């Protein structure tokens, strides 16, 4: 059986707002990637790959549509 699709973040679009992280029902996404912009803001990463159920809630919540399920 194929694995469920997991969120992949497009950092060109992402604003580091933390909505995906705050809305994830299992807190699989953490804000800790800091090499994206000149302000060293903390961007999201899928920290808990195997715990993620691929529920798509993060992708649906993202106002920037910066998350694709792949």
């Amino acid at each position, binding site marked *: 059986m194929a694995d469920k699709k997991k969120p992949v973040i497009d950092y060109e679009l992402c604003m580091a*707002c*933390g909505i995906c992280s*705050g809305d994830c029902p*299992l*807190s699989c996404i953490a804000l800790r990637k800091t090499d994206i912009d000149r*302000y*060293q803001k*903390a961007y999201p990463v899928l920290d808990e790959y195997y715990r993620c159920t691929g529920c798509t809630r993060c992708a649906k919540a993202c106002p920037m*549509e910066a998350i694709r399920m792949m």
Partner: protein
Amino acid sequence: MRGDFLKGYCGKILMVDLSDSTFEEIEIPDMIYEHFLSGVGLGAYILYKYLPQGADPLGPDNILGFVSGLLTGTGSFMTGRWLAVCKSPLTGGFGDANCGGTFSPAIKQSGYDGIFLKGQSPTPKMLFIDNNGPQLLDAADLWGLDTVETEAAINQKITANKKLAIATIGPAGEHQSLIAGISNDGGRMAARSGVGAVMGSKKLKAVVLAGSKMIRSRDPQTIKTISRDYAKKVKASNLPPLATGAMLPMMGKSMVATDKAIPIDGMLSTAIIKKWGTGFTNTMGMTMGDTPVKNWKGSVADFPYRKYRHMNPDQIQKHETQKYHCYSCVIGCGGVCDINGISKGRFSHTHKPEYETVAAFGSLLLNKDRDSIFIINELLNRGGMDSISAGNTIAFAMECYEKDWLSPEVTGGLELTWGNAEAIVTLVEQMIAGVDFGAILQHGVKKASEILGIESAPLAIHAGGQEPGMHDPRLDPILGIHYSCDPTPGRHTIGAGSYYTYMRIWEDVTWAPKVKLGEDKNNEYEATNQVGLKSMINVCIKQILDGSGGCFFALVSGLNHFKIFDYLNAATGWQKTPNEYMTIGLRMQTLRQAFNVREGINPRDFKMNERLSGNPPLKEGPLKGKHFNIDEMMSIHYQFMGWDKKTGIPTKTALSDLGFCDLEMEGATHG
């Protein structure tokens, strides 16, 4: 749950009785949201309806609420703030304290727009809510821990599917310091009104949330469109890479070099805040005259460049290891700073000190020791005490000491000379612990003045018991109106002439006067109709913001960018005009004022210390000679709010016009 719940809000609150450990879910009719929004408006409605008149703020009848915002969790940006609400033990009237972080969405993800607690527990408790519902858990082992230790201990103790969102008090709240706040996210404080003392009086150590319920809006696609448009502008708003903190004092000077209004685009403030957070004001405020000096009686002449240069935000950011965003924020004003070396291993890190803390423990005390401010910041965050109130209170003590009204015998040997950083740090520790000379200062400046004697009262800088924020009304008199007229007095985020200019509300609200290029700012020192109208508009939009969970920095980025009215319509499905929303804001504020009147507050008693209105005027600095008549300013504000011009009490006509009779609140106190 009602069928078509796609309105951004949950439609219910949780009421917890700590005396008998019972829970009650209360459904809130749609009409209440349409009249008061959520957030502070919902909080005011619940307090007005359920809090017995005359309740002791530190007794079982007081109600402590944790409220989210109507827009929180809807996909809107800059709307992740929550408030603690209660009857304030500091002022005796309506109390609220506003905070960011990650706690606000967690309230709604628990299924409620607000979580309210009444009664008192005989033993320390924490409230835990996940998708299975609420429980009260024993917290005896947490009592005595600071806020950071408490979060760590709870995370050890409770395992949940979702990362825990925790609001907690520290030792200051436990021993009911009247200037104690409530912390979340490792030391972010809902600091004002003494909300932490109320939590301590209920023996409630923490509220711990782990729910993951969905928050649904009527038109999420439109919300996303608005959000993307705002984000695009924020992303494009950046200062040139060569801009440094050394330029900020010059910017401050240039801003006061003219008496003419320059309505700049608010996105400039966004670019500045992105770079430095609130710290940009650390030095700019000195040359503008915005930053108070030496217990509000000094000027930049007393704390010149060679001293204030240590507060250059570039210097502070050298310690910053990471930026910090609140939930749904696209600006990111916060930061985490490494202070392991500074504190000699006592603390590994602290939240980047906000401007308010830097000023309250810097120029206000003539303290140029930046390292001490990092440590004080962490002490207060962990102790759970309001930095604005604590700084003002120590400034008061230092002025008393200067006048020889306090001797080292009274202070326990502390030399409270201006700028004595070591003594300031010790005194902060004493205040948090409520011991030694700190026991006299732990309840804020009004109480300290009462203990030390009536002669000291003119030195006690407060409005209605609440110490003012670090912004000087002698620079911006409308700020003084809000310090003196708000039902939660002494607050710097309610309104000001400068905020009015930045938010450009005249582009949405048809009756709001436009600020024209070159308009004479000196007109704001007189109690004119224009001043009354601007201050009333400030209040209305601030209530809308606090009912939505909105961030003040979004507001001052300009409503032409931050489309709060469009957000609200898209979230709820309402089709209200900005003018109609302003009526809601007016109603929210009037309800808060009616609450105060019901609780026996004389609104005129909230008048700020006369020193803040330039009585007597300063003899040096950028605000030299500036003064205004605060009594007349209060009258014109009351008049435009529809309250009695003399007493500040909402009139019967105003209450009727705002529909209080339809809400079965016809008993609301009126003049």
